[in-house]
């Protein structure tokens, strides 16, 4: 099976080429089959790799494909590294990706850009697979840029709407700001280690002492890249705007896969980060601040997708918190469980939007429990999972992160728990307002309410199942389970484990923390139930009076407006000035001057051609004499 590893990215690439070139001529069914089939085949091969890896004892394998860049001392082969970390990500990307492709067949069925959508989706899967399979930083960077491109294409999918195009452009530009940091980090890695291949860099890194300035700079630059890609403060504002894209895009790219690329990158470079404690502190701080900040914004949003978007930013903050604490396995665990329940929630939201004929405001929804039973049930599972209620997936992953936070600093644990509380509250607020009580939409919408077709509900059910059982791959020792995921990923993080302080909590403390968290969360859920179900409260309509604090939070702390006025407007002004002065006045006049000179000289010199043969012969004789004279000098 290991010989087929090159097929994993190539199959979606072929899918992209076929659908991209001939999509308009093929039937919609065929396009859907090709798109889903390539991703399913990639998943099957990834699963095969997983079982092989288990049997072989989880040893990393490097597969060399071809010699790529060969210039002087720089020799970069195009090769893949298959080790437990990449296998976990492969399974998530192809598995969840396949379910979302299946869902999109139903969701995008009436869209005229059907084949274009699947072409872009397949291209995205290709680049994401390159990102996680590459054996050096350059292939990761190629995949990194590629998924940024596909994100742009897919956010601005309905390109006739200018607002959507602006959102796509914003996402791409913010990504690029991060990419600059990432690229500088790669260059610095090359200068320091003389190579950008993972095996060589990490091998050399073992010889480094801890807390050297060069390592801190490298890891800070890499983290800047992760901030851009994984939507942390200050480069997070593109993610809520990215909800302009179709819902499957939000599920795949902005929940399950692309935004986790930053976490993958840091997990892959774990040895470099462990050698830079300062950066780890920065990562943890940025993570927890983002988690809290985004959670507070999510409390006041009324668009179903925006709530989920801020929830994603918040959960990504938790993953970075885990990375910053040195708990790399926990971050990957949370990536996996988050992929399950966030994709589920987004697809469920898509199902709701589909049934509501495009309405996304939860103030217009309500009572959808009866009309959309499967969506209701799976959305309930997803909401319970994200809130961290046992035995669903979110409980195990989030609780472990909180336990490690407690071992490092009780304050961090408290802030993390606060974020969890807010998460539970706004998710259940969303849940109750959408599915319970009476319908608040228009009559026309009410008539159109219907459950989604099978291609949409089957992925929902599969993801719901995963959200239920997904946590069991990481049951901690304190609860009696052998942490299967930790054991599987142990060789990848072995170097880091040796260096970072092991955080040991007594079993009693862990039980206490878990129980405390569950009790608080259940009470918060009951509070939300009381507020939105029994007391039938509704969020304020547009134009209604709201308190100043509520207004600030509802307007996302005006961060977008601040960026607009402090950064975007001055840069636009500078570019306008450069255009008016340098481009129009200087460069254009220079080029026009050359043209005018040619015109003038030709107009003047043409009078030599007077037609007088005698003069021509005379000129010839004169020239010959001149040549002979000059030759004799």
């Amino acid at each position, binding site marked *: 099976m290991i010989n087929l590893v090159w097929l994993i990215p190539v199959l979606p690439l072929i899918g992209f080429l076929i659908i991209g070139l001939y999509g308009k001529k093929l039937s919609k069914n065929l396009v859907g089959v090709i798109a889903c089939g390539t991703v399913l085949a990639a998943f099957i091969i990834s699963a095969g790799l997983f079982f092989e890896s288990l049997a072989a004892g989880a040893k990393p394998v490097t597969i060399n494909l071809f010699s790529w860049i060969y210039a002087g001392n720089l020799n970069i082969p195009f090769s893949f590294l298959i080790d437990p970390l990449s296998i976990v990500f492969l399974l998530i990307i192809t598995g969840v990706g396949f379910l979302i492709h299946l869902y999109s067949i139903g969701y995008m069925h009436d869209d005229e850009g059907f084949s274009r959508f699947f072409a872009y989706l397949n291209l995205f899967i290709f680049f994401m697979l390159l990102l996680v399979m590459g054996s050096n930083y350059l292939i990761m960077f190629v995949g990194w840029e590629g998924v940024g491109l596909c994100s742009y294409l897919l956010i601005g999918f309905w390109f006739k709407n200018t607002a959507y195009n602006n959102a796509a452009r914003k996402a791409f530009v913010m990504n690029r700001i991060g990419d600059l940091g990432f690229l500088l980090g790669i260059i610095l890695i090359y200068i320091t280690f003389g190579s950008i291949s993972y095996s060589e860099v990490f091998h050399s890194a073992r010889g480094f002492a801890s807390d050297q300035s060069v390592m801190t700079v490298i890891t800070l630059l890499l983290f800047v890249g992760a901030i851009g890609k994984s939507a942390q403060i200050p480069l997070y504002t593109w993610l809520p705007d990215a909800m302009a894209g179709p819902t499957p895009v939000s599920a795949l790219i902005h929940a399950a896969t692309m935004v986790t690329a930053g976490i993958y990158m840091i997990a892959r470079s774990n040895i470099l980060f462990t050698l830079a404690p300062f950066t780890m502190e920065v990562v943890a701080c940025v993570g927890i601040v983002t988690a809290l900040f985004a959670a507070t914004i999510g409390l006041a949003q009324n668009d179903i997708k925006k709530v989920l978007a801020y929830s994603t930013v918040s959960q990504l903050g938790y993953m970075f918190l885990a990375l910053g604490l040195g708990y790399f396995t926990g971050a990957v665990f949370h990536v996996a469980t988050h992929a399950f329940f966030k994709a589920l929630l987004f697809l469920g939201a898509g199902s709701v939007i589909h049934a509501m004929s495009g309405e996304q405001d939860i103030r217009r929804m309500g009572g959808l429990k009866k009309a959309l039973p499967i969506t209701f049930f799976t959305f309930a599972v997803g909401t319970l999972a994200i809130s961290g209620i046992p035995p669903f997936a979110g409980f195990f992953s989030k609780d472990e992160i909180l336990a490690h936070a407690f071992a490092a600093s009780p304050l961090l644990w408290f802030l993390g728990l606060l974020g969890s509380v807010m998460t539970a509250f706004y998710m259940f607020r969303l849940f109750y307002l959408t599915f319970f009580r009476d319908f608040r939409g228009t009559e026309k919408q009410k008539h159109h309410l219907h459950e989604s077709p099978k291609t949409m509900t089957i992925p929902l059910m599969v993801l719901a199942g995963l959200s239920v059982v997904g946590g069991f791959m990481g049951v901690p020792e304190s609860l009696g389970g052998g942490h299967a995921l930790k054991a599987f990923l142990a060789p990848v993080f072995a170097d880091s484990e040796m260096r970072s302080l092991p955080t040991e909590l007594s079993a009693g403390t862990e039980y206490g923390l878990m129980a405390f968290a569950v009790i608080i969360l259940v009470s918060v859920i009951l509070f939300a139930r009381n507020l939105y179900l029994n007391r039938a409260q509704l969020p304020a309509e547009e134009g209604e009076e709201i308190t100043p604090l509520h207004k600030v939070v509802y307007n996302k702390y005006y961060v977008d407006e601040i960026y607009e006025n402090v950064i975007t407007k001055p840069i636009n002004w500078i570019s306008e000035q450069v255009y008016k002065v340098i481009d129009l006045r200087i460069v254009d006049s220079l080029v026009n001057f050359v043209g005018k000179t040619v015109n003038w000289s030709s107009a003047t010199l*043409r*009078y030599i*051609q*007077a*037609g*007088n*043969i*005698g003069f021509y*012969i005379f000129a010839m*004789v004169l020239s010959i004499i001149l040549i002979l004279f000059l030759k004799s000098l």
Partner: protein
Amino acid sequence: MSAVQLVPINWYILLSAVLFTIGVLGVLFRRNAIIIFMCIEIMLNAVNLLLVAFSSYLSDGAGQVFVFFIMAVAAAEVAVGLAILIMIYRNNHSTDINVLNKLKW
């Protein structure tokens, strides 16, 4: 010692130069196309004379061989040139070269 070499070579060079100058001046100042052709022939023959003189004085046969080439080329050139001259005469009814001044700006 042949009779030719009793004359210093300077005289031959001077004669050749004078002939060549006459030819050039003729080409520049005469209006009749046929006269111009004849002046071109004068120039060619001046060169031939010089080449043969040097060939004789330096006892090198290469000069005379080159003269053969020049004569062949001159003959071919005259053939083509006279053909062109006849076409000019047919169109303009005159061999005055100042008539051919239409190809100008």
